[in-house]
């Protein structure tokens, strides 16, 4: 299949111009797909993006959501996105950087969203994930709890949950936990 004499020729050529080309950083297929995802984002007006490492690093970015209705109205929530080189074979890694009193987001910023883990499919995209996060802020649910206390309050006493969310967003203690202001 391979003609060896061509190899011989090439080895001679290589020896002749040893320092030919500059090393080039190889971009992954994941970066290309992400490029497409990002350039096609169609975001709700409450969502904005930031690229802390500049225009060329799309693999790490932040999404800020400012809900315009629901329990979290008025708050500002920042989510960090980390994309792997084999995206979309693997889901984005998302963390909530804002400390939030939320049944599906724990105090370390882990987010319980099905499409980020067990239900991720390569046909999904960044847009879908951002809408998923938006939905989570619009409609927190007590059935998939990561913050068990918040989930129990939401289930048993939605009014108390609402005032707890307010208190946390204004900034202050909820039990032992301090929530910085995010309004």
């Amino acid at each position, binding site marked *: *299949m391979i003609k060896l004499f061509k190899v011989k020729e090439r080895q001679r050529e290589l020896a002749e111009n040893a320092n*030919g080309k500059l*090393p080039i950083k190889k971009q992954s297929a994941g970066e290309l797909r992400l490029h497409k995802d990002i350039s096609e984002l169609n975001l709700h007006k409450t969502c904005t993006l930031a690229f802390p490492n500049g225009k060329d690093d799309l693999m790490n970015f932040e999404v800020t959501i400012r809900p315009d209705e629901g329990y979290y109205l008025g708050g500002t929530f920042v989510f960090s996105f980390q994309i792997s080189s084999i995206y979309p074979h693997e889901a984005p890694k998302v963390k909530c950087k804002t400390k939030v009193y939320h049944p599906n987001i724990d105090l370390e910023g882990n987010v319980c969203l099905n499409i980020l*883990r067990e239900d*991720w499919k390569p046909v999904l995209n960044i847009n879908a994930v951002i809408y998923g996060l938006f939905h989570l802020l619009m409609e927190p649910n007590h059935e998939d709890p990561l913050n068990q206390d918040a989930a129990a309050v939401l289930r048993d006493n939605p009014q108390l949950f609402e005032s707890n969310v307010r208190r946390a967003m204004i900034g202050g203690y909820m039990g032992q936990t301090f929530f910085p202001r995010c309004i």
Partner: protein
Amino acid sequence: MAESTVHQSRSRDLDKLLLRPGNLVAPTFEPGAQLRDDLQEYAKILVVGAGGLGCELLKDLALSGFKNLEVIDMDRIEVTNLNRQFLFRLEDVGKPKAEVAARRVMERVSGVNIVPHFCRIEDKDIDFYRDFIIIVLGLDSVEARSYINAVACGFLEYDSDDKPIEETVKPMVDGGTEGFKGHARVIIPGSTPCFECTIWLFPPQVKFPLCTLAETPRTAAHCIEYAHLIKWDEVHSGKTFDPDDPEHMKWVYTEAVKRAELFGIQGVTYSLTQGVVKNIIPAIASTNAIVSAACTLETLKLVSGCSKTLSNYLTYNGVEGLHIKVTEFVKDKDCLVCGPGVLLELDTSVTLQKFIDMLEEHPKLLLSKASVRHQATNLYMQAPQVLEEMTRSNLNLPLFELMGKVPRDIVHVTGTTSRDDKKASCLRKLCLVFKGADAVTDQDMAVGA
């Protein structure tokens, strides 16, 4: 005299293949002593990975008459490797796999030279990979395969009829095993599907819902993942978990045991903890041997042309009985990694804005609202606004300059195509050739003219 007898007997069987003509051979096959000698002198082969498959591959390639081998692996030897990575001994634990593997094979097989590289595959210049006639992969991750595939396909050039140019084809032979299952495949970029063409063949990794881990664990793996993904962050705020640090692993194991006791779950062990956290797949020595043997034979056939090669994907499944199957996958003609892309000839003076306008008119593309990426640089992004603002100033600059004044290179564009009044988003690979750029020696003069 003893030396020459050994030599003769070792190449005797190989000679039968390489010195005589045959019917089922590749069209390029030129039997003869010259071929055998060239094979030994010029065929330089890279083995990526010196683990379970890598050890087998090095041994098999050395015993098949290849004399110039190199091996690259970033790992050090661990005790748990010793059951199947037969080139390593207990006293080697902690040493680089590539170095020990190379030394051991050279000790056993006289005349073979193996150069070890103890580093990450990304640490090597792209040109390092150019040197090899074939790259043989004995890897365990999708990421690493994807990287090597991108590098090998990056050498590929097409002629004006979109036919691969033979000298630029860098074939790969990829092996993989998982317990009783394995695969061997031949990737000839431009002819057979590359790794990205068929990436969907890899099953998605199993991931448990976080809320199951937090609230309703049912298995030992749930308890381990809880300690690894949730408890670790809770206790060590800001410190990243390092799976290769035994202290970290022990901590996760201890926490997982506590968790399992709390929920009355059996089966958390230290080795299961390692398995779950590092996503270790059980390895069986003989599966590695079978897959490596297939890969080595395909390598020999590819290099020498002494027989037709596997076309193009062999699966071995020894789970229920034994099933072996060869499937001929087809390549994705629009593959972003191995496909030819659309060839465009441009003047060196064309600005990025003009280029974007041209894409809209181009009959093969009809691509509007294009965002343009060259290598790791975003030249222009239509959206989101923040990136549009950061890249807008590029629009008035000549594309030739933005791309570093190379006469020819690949760019990727995303945008909207409209065919038959239907709009669809698309991502395309373009091969840009700048007219007269080869002759330009003084860039300033060229721009002035």
